[in-house]
C-alpha cells in the first residue's frame, strides 16, 4: 500500500484542516497509514476536547474503512479525506466502482432498510435523498443468549455506525464514486 497525502490550506474563516490520503492497495500493513491519519487528527484537535475518546473512535473507524478497502474495493486506489473542524471530525472514504446493493432500496419508498439482525444489534439504513443512505443501529434486548449461534460475524459496519455520530453512504452515478462518510461531533 502506498500512501500519499495532500495538505490543503486551512481556511482561517472556517477553522478547519483537511488532508487527503491516497492508498494504492498492495501488501503493506495498515498501521503506518493509520498512524499518519491519527497524528494528523491529534495535531489539529482544538484544546479542551475529549481527545483520547475521539482518537479511539477515529482509530476504529479508520481501521474499518481501510480494512473494507482491502476486502471489497473495486479500484486499486482508495482516498481517505480527514477533516478536523472546530466541533467535529469528518472522515470520508472514496473508491470507484459498483454501488452497494442498498442503493436500489435507497431510491424506493421504504423508510428503513434492514441489513442485519441478531441478539446484539439491529443494523439498518435510512434513505436520505438520491443514492444516499444513513446507517443506524439499535441494541437488541439480549433476552435470548441461547441464540449466540445466530450472531452475525461481520462487524465492520456496526463498529463504524456505533462509533460515529453519523455514518452515511452515497453513490455518484456520474463519477461512479462510492463515498462513506463518518462524522464525530464534539
Amino acid at each position, binding site marked *: 500500500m502506498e500512501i500519499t497525502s495532500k495538505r490543503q490550506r486551512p481556511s482561517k474563516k472556517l477553522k478547519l484542516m483537511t488532508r487527503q490520503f491516497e492508498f494504492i492497495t498492495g501488501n503493506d500493513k495498515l498501521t503506518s497509514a493509520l498512524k499518519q491519519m491519527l497524528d494528523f487528527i491529534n495535531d489539529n484537535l482544538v484544546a479542551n476536547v475529549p481527545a483520547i475518546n475521539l482518537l479511539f473512535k477515529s482509530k476504529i473507524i479508520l481501521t474499518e474503512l481501510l480494512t473494507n478497502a482491502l476486502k471489497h474495493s473495486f479500484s486499486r486506489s482508495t482516498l481517505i479525506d480527514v477533516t478536523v473542524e472546530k466541533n467535529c471530525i469528518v472522515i470520508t472514504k472514496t473508491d470507484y466502482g459498483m454501488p452497494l446493493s442498498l442503493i436500489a432500496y435507497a431510491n424506493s419508498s421504504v423508510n428503513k432498510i434492514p441489513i442485519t439482525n441478531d441478539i*446484539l444489534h439491529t443494523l439498518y439504513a435510512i434513505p436520505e435523498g438520491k443514492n444516499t443512505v444513513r446507517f443506524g443501529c439499535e441494541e437488541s434486548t439480549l433476552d435470548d443468549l441461547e441464540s449466540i449461534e445466530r450472531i452475525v460475524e461481520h*462487524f465492520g459496519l456496526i463498529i463504524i455506525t456505533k462509533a460515529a455520530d453519523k455514518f452515511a453512504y452515497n453513490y455518484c452515478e456520474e463519477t461512479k464514486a462510492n463515498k462513506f462518510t463518518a462524522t464525530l461531533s464534539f
Partner: protein
Amino acid sequence: MIRIIKDTPGHLLIEIEASEANLDNSDLFKTQVTELLDRHNKNIVIDFNRVEYIDSSFLGALVAILKYAMAHKLEVILTAMRKDVHDLLMLIRLDKVFKIYGDYEQAAAAL
C-alpha cells in the same frame, strides 16, 4: 499465530503472538484454534496481552470460534486485553457473550 502456554486437564491457555489481529491473520487464527478444540476437546483461555490492535475480521473469527466451541460444549475465555481492544469489544457488545477476565488466574478460577 498462537502458542500454547499451558495445558491443564481442564483447559488450554494460548497466547496470540501477533500484535496486529486483523484481516491478514484472522483465518489462520480461526483454523488453528478450532484445530486445538478438535484435538484437545478442552476449554480454551486466550491471552491477548500482545495484541495492540484488532479489527472486525478478527472479531468475526473470535465469534466463529465461540460458536464452534459452544457446539462442542466447550468454553472460550478471553484475558489480558489492552484497554483499546477491550473497549472495542464493549462497543459492539461482545462482552455480553464472551467471558472476559483481567488475567489468566482470574480466568482459571472461573473455569
